[in-house]
């Protein structure tokens, strides 16, 4: 398709994009603004985009206010990464089976996975608490990892299955004729070809794991050392006041490493979401 927008149309597109992004990014802009200003000025001044009193003081002070902050950031990434890794190990063979094999109750179980996704974690908190308690996993990393994995497997299977279905069947048949086993084919042919899809699914799972850990952390864990960042941020709420600027600074610092990784994965994400849509 040839891009034939007139100048007016182009300007219109950019204005629309600007307002859309402004709407999406406004909370982030506010976070950055708050994190850069001293506490005393936060509540008094009117909203301005730029102010003379911007400083990075909060980014220095936050490490003293909450000494375990670094640990919390690490925990967050560690929990989300573990959830992602375990989920992918389970999802890849499962999605491949759903994409290629025929077995009884295939459609029914696939529907079941979708149904599980309808429950939010909150509904299942009490039963999960009892299960984790009887398994002796409360107040460990497992308390945050296992429920995370359980809730993300269905999404992963659904996403990856549709991607794997687009890999030509003849490639696998050719490998089969040459004597390759299912697992060998999965490892040497399917997974390399599905890499963009795997990155998409991995990213979706990681985001999911990052978002849901707060709920599991405050419910199943009260050990400070293994608390993830969203729960750790509560420590900025003191007895007297809330150091909003340091809390925002800490939140921004916590998501920065993840943001950087996503920036590099971006090209795969776009390629992965559109790959196979058009016959090449």
């Amino acid at each position, binding site marked *: 398709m040839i891009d034939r927008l007139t100048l007016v149309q182009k300007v219109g597109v950019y204005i629309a994009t600007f307002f859309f992004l402004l709407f999406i990014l406004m909370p982030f802009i506010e976070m950055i603004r708050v994190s850069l200003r001293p506490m005393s000025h936060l509540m008094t001044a009117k909203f301005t985009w730029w102010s003379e009193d911007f400083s990075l003081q909060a980014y220095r002070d936050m490490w003293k206010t909450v000494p375990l902050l670094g640990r919390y950031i690490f925990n967050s990434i560690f929990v989300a990464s573990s959830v992602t890794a375990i989920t992918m190990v389970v999802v890849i063979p499962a999605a491949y089976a759903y994409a290629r094999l025929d077995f009884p109750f295939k459609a029914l179980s696939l529907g079941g996975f979708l149904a599980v996704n309808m429950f939010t974690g909150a509904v299942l908190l009490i039963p999960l608490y009892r299960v984790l308690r009887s398994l002796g996993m409360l107040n460990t990393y497992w308390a945050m990892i296992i429920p995370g994995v359980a809730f993300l497997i269905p999404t992963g299977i659904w996403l990856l299955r549709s991607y794997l279905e687009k890999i030509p069947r003849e490639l696998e048949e*050719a490998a089969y*004729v040459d*004597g390759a086993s299912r697992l060998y084919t999965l490892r040497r042919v399917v997974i390399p070809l599905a890499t963009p899809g795997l990155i998409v699914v991995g990213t979706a799972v990681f985001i999911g794991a990052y978002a849901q850990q707060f709920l599991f952390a405050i419910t199943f864990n009260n050990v400070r050392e293994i608390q993830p960042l969203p729960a750790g941020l509560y420590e900025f709420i003191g007895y007297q006041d809330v150091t909003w600027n340091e809390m925002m600074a800490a939140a921004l610092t916590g998501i920065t490493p993840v943001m950087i990784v996503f920036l590099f994965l971006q090209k795969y994400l776009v390629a992965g979401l559109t790959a196979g849509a058009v016959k090449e």
Partner: protein
Amino acid sequence: MATLDLQSITKSFGSAQVLSGIDLAIRDKEFVVFVGPSGCGKSTLLRIIAGLEASTSGRILIDGVDVSAAAPVDRGIAMVFQSYALYPHLSVYENIAFPLRVARLPEPEVKQKVGRAADILQLTEKLPLKPGQLSGGQRQRVAIGRSIVRNPKVFLFDEPLSNLDAALRGEMRVELSALQRDLDATMVYVTHDQIEAMTMAHRIVVLNKGRIEQFGTPMELYHHPATRFVATFIGQPNMNLLPATVVGTGPEGLTVELHGGTRMTLPVDTATARAGDSVEVGIRPESLQLGTGVTMHLRVLERLGGTAIAYGQMADGLKLCAALPGDTTVHEGEDVGLTFAPADAHVFDANGRVMRRRQAPALAA
């Protein structure tokens, strides 16, 4: 040594019978082509031989050993797919080496075998490239390379040339025939293109609606088609079929009356014919000459240089096609008279079975 025998192979998907009672004996070092219209079951039959699909009943024997239950790799077959099925993430070298890697051969042996295959197929310079950087014909050769490194007993080709353009297809036909001779291999080749079948095959299997219509050498099929279907499928342009009525039989053959009243005595076996039967007289376009016999209103004349293909209609609306000499002087829009030698006629009964010709040319072995 590799013979391939199929014994009463059937295949049905649910209630749909795709193949019924396929019996076939393919000799060692033979190039056999399965040909037929789409949906005739030829690809399914190939996939059953390959072991990608299980037959509903029947047995497959390679070198006399029943391999019906064996995995493809244990059958000693290699297959080249229509879409080539090359692994886009692997280099040409690794694509060709894939079956050897699966078999866990040591690296020096892999190198030697891939090198030899690349040599045969003139791919040596392309080894480090990815399939995406190759042309269609080169990809096809890589797919063939992958099939020959394992020294299989039987090669299976599933419409390997249908993705290539016409010029390249002609070139690859010649290459494949030469390759078959060089490798001394048994090959089974599936195509819907009767030209590929005629040019490459030692023997052709014509399939129609899941049944073998005829199994024979190309010239046998051309001169002695067993059924009306084979007669119209083999040969380009297609054979003309003229409805006729049997008038009588005699020692010289079958006397028929064509529409329009022309009576002819055709030298064919008359054992099954009775006076009054309706039959069809088949005449190949290349057997028709200008003369007095049937009259055709010439609508289109295609001049190919050496020959000119004349398409037209008879008075009763029946379409007719004749291959005339290239320098013929007839014009579009004219009525032209056509005639044929009785010995060139094929006669098919109402069930489409042939009445065997008595004076056909000697068959090429």
